[in-house]
């Protein structure tokens, strides 16, 4: 079993801060606690609660012996759940340091923001993996841009199988695009989609972003999809049908 010491983090802490911590702990492994790592249920958070926040708690508790520090994200770039979670983690005994990453103006021209990975021709799950990698490291590659035949709006899902339903011509919108643009609390960019591009507005169940997703889906004629945990047959069929009936793949 890997015994390397860990810095855990969630959300999108400011890069300047994570770089400082990396200098202080140069040999530690950084783990994004938002992601489904297959950790057992810690049974601390309610069952009917955001799956991503539950991942954070479950992963932290499971990896507790190896975690030296958790860098949290507690500003409007994350959510109130992230802020409360930070408090609980410190109560449990973790060494927690809080950050915020929302000290900038919302963009007035979201269409002009440079997001090459979001617009690339890579498979959608790969796009989102690469975008989330940019939380800690800049992307050094160049990407071939593709015309969007459809869009995925939202946060990285708990279940990446959902992303495999989309063609490589899907563009990324919402919070994930904001991450690539290094503007994780920019609500104007988060609410931007290309008009006319059939878009799936995805949220994890119980997430506060549900209100945005439902509103935007109605505004742009997209598909609102709410998933708790793993993707079921019904959701899979809805997305498949939406993409096919819109000739998106």
């Amino acid at each position, binding site marked *: 079993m890997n015994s390397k010491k860990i810095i855990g983090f969630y959300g999108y802490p400011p890069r300047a801060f994570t770089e400082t911590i990396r200098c202080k702990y140069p040999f530690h492994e950084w783990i994004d606690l938002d992601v489904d790592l297959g950790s057992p249920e810690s049974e601390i958070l309610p069952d009917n609660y955001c799956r991503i926040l539950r991942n954070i708690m479950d992963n932290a508790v499971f990896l507790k012996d190896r975690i030296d520090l958790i860098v949290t994200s507690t500003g409007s770039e994350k959510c109130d759940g992230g802020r409360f979670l930070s408090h609980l983690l410190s109560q449990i005994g973790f060494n927690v340091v809080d950050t915020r990453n929302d000290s900038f103006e919302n963009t007035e021209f979201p269409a002009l923001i440079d997001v090459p990975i979001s617009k690339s021709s890579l498979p959608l799950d790969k796009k989102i993996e690469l975008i989330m990698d940019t939380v800690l490291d800049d992307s050094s590659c160049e990407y071939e841009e593709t015309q969007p035949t459809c869009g995925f709006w939202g946060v990285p899902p708990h279940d990446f199988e959902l992303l495999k339903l989309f063609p490589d011509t899907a563009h990324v919108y919402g919070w994930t695009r904001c991450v690539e643009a290094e503007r994780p609390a920019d609500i104007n960019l988060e609410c931007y989609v290309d008009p006319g591009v059939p878009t799936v507005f995805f949220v994890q169940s119980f997430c506060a972003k549900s209100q945005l997703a439902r509103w935007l889906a109605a505004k742009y*004629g997209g*598909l609102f999809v709410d998933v708790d945990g793993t993707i*079921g*047959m*019904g*959701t899979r*069929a*809805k997305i*498949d*049908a*939406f993409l*096919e*009936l*819109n000739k998106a793949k």
Partner: protein
Amino acid sequence: MILADCGTSYTKILDLSDGKLSIVETRQVVKNENRTFDAATGHLGRLKSRLYKNELVCLAVGTLEITHDDNFCVVDIGGRDTKLVEFKNGKPLRLDWNMACGANTGFTLEIVGRYYDVDYSILKPVDEYIDVTCGVFGIERVFDAIISGVTEDIAIARFVHGVARNVHRVTDRKERFYLSGGLTENACFMNSILKYAEVVPLGRAVLLEGLKIAMQDQDVMKRFIMN
């Protein structure tokens, strides 16, 4: 070519050589391991055919084909699920597929009907309804009503009305919509739901009609060939 809509309770089979539609209980299809189809939709469609087509796509395409209406809302009430497709100006506006709640599924009505040996074709609809927030809770309310002295027929008609009311709510209370599936043949249900909206029954073969159209599209056929 033999097409099938393999639902939870019933399998609808269309033989394209003579256009004959037959309906058999799905448990008979499941029992017969050698029974397969050229193309299928429905819950068991993947297991029983080389070509499988998404139910929502079949429902959408079938409704467009039958109605020639590109502004529509259609609800398909299956044994264990409710599917909804809404189109505006020929484009999908809403797609929904509820697979987890018995408050508006055909199987719930079937259980009650079989238990009390009810003939829904002659059961008189009633204005009162049982609030069927959940299939099981709704059935409990039927028992409660009967215990309190209401006749079986009235208690069950109230239950049917409650389910019909739920189906109308699923449509966001549309004034007019199409209905697909076996419940279109349930007179008590149809008379109950007509209290709320103009409901145009499309019968039990809407998904098969959509599957037929999809199979005529060679590109679609290639895409859905299962290796």
